[in-house]
């Protein structure tokens, strides 16, 4: 067993980027992502990390630099939050369209207005359709681990897609947690140097990012769609290989006490750990409740989700963002997954914890109680903002 050490999650994330032998870091500081880039700039300035650190004037430039550096074959990293991600959003579509395996951490934060620095998933949802593989992690160790998983996955010749690691701002980024760090030799074995399929080089000129007329655009998008859809076996393979190395086996859909459970809480991100405490309390009272946690957001793991969800009677989906005018985006996906089945669980949707409002185990219990009563009364697809003062 590796020794566990206490470390701030942002610092551990930066250490993972160092251990992943990243060649280029380009980032612009924004709360709550700041500690990650600060630590990376220190590592580079102190000569502890052999990388180029680009201090750019905006997030738009930060990701643009990564697109350029990745195109030359340099392993590249950036990270941001909220308004920074919004400014970067144009380039997120370009990175995936050009099939450049950049890895980005998003320390999730609320999009303004009203202006807020605290955590929710509205930033991640704003670029939901950008074509990157997207993970939501639950704790600090998972942030650290997913940096290696993401580069290995992104750079695979059968994948070649950028990857986003979503971590809840403050709730994860600013807390000190115990970490099992991985020895460098093991990481070097798990993550060999990047071998690009195509790269910009003056000796062999190629064109990236060319204009495409309607006659070829749809064919290009089909190739991109097939690439992300068929990355699922590779995702499972990489998660398995990582588990074999560390003993920490991750899955696209994580389950906690879901067997034989009538009601399942469905969460994404750091909600998972808190909700598991609520599940334990409810189980102690003899209630038939379990927890399903969505780790992989894109490509959406429909098959894995259905295997768990179809055994339950009620799903209580907790979203940490609103698609204004529609409800919770996670609930929308869950409902889509179940549409083809005549016998399917009811889906009750809460939007909770937006802009960093605390959601305690007692809140999850209240949500389960409320949902079970509403569903009992025939409200099979309710939606509400939890805890709003009337």
């Amino acid at each position, binding site marked *: 067993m590796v020794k566990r050490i206490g470390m701030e999650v942002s610092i551990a994330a930066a250490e993972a980027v160092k251990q992943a032998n990243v060649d280029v870091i380009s980032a612009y500081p924004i709360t709550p992502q700041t500690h990650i880039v600060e630590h990376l700039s220190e590592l580079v300035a102190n000569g502890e990390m052999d990388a180029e650190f680009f201090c750019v004037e905006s997030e738009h430039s930060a990701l643009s630099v990564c697109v350029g550096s990745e195109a030359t074959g340099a392993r590249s990293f950036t990270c941001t939050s909220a308004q920074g991600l919004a400014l970067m959003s144009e380039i997120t579509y370009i990175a995936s*369209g*050009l*099939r*450049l395996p950049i890895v980005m951490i998003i320390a999730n934060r609320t999009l303004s207005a009203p202006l807020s620095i605290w955590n929710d998933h509205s930033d991640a949802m704003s670029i939901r359709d950008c074509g990157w593989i997207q993970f939501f992690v639950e704790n600090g160790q998972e942030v650290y681990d997913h940096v290696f998983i993401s580069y290995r996955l992104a750079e695979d010749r059968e994948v*070649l897609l950028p990857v986003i690691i979503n971590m809840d701002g403050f709730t994860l980024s600013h807390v000190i947690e115990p970490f099992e760090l991985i020895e460098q030799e093991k990481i070097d074995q798990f993550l060999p140097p990047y071998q690009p*399929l*195509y790269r910009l080089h003056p000796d062999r*000129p*190629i*064109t*990236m990012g*060319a204009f*495409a*007329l309607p*006659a*070829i655009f*749809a*064919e*290009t998008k*089909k*190739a991109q769609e*097939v*690439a992300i859809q068929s990355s699922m076996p590779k995702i499972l393979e990489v998660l398995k290989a990582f588990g074999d190395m560390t003993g920490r086996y991750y899955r696209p859909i994580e389950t906690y006490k879901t067997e034989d459970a009538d009601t399942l809480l469905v969460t994404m991100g750091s909600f998972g750990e808190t909700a598991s405490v609520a599940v334990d309390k409810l189980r102690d009272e003899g209630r038939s409740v379990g927890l399903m946690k969505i780790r992989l957001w894109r490509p959406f793991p429909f098959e894995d989700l259905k295997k768990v969800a179809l055994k339950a009677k009620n799903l209580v989906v907790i979203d940490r963002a609103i698609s204004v005018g529609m409800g919770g985006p996670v609930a929308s996906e869950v409902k889509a997954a179940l549409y083809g089945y005549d016998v399917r669980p009811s889906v009750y949707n809460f939007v909770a914890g937006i802009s960093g409002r605390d959601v305690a185990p007692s809140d999850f219990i209240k949500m389960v109680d409320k949902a079970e009563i509403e569903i009992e009364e025939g409200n099979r697809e309710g939606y509400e903002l939890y805890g709003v003062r009337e």
Partner: protein
Amino acid sequence: MTKPEYEWTWKEIPVGNVILEPGNASQYRTGDWKSLKPILDQGKCIHCGLCYIYCPDMAYNLNEEGYFIADLFYCKGCGICAKECPTGAISMVVEEEEK
């Protein structure tokens, strides 16, 4: 060797739509964009080459007789050559009228 873009299937497109053959834009027929084409009156031409210089598509080439002639494979029919010609030797003609 490249082929017309409407012949590519999604499986054949290089990853990321990378163009592996440099300079293949020369195989793209921009000439079919035009509705007007330039006609040179050789009697008025003074061989100054302004049409060649101003042409935004580099469609003009010098022929063996010393005249600059637009290559209609590339010429988009913008009319800049006719506008700039100091002797009015170039006129823009609707393509269909030629038939």
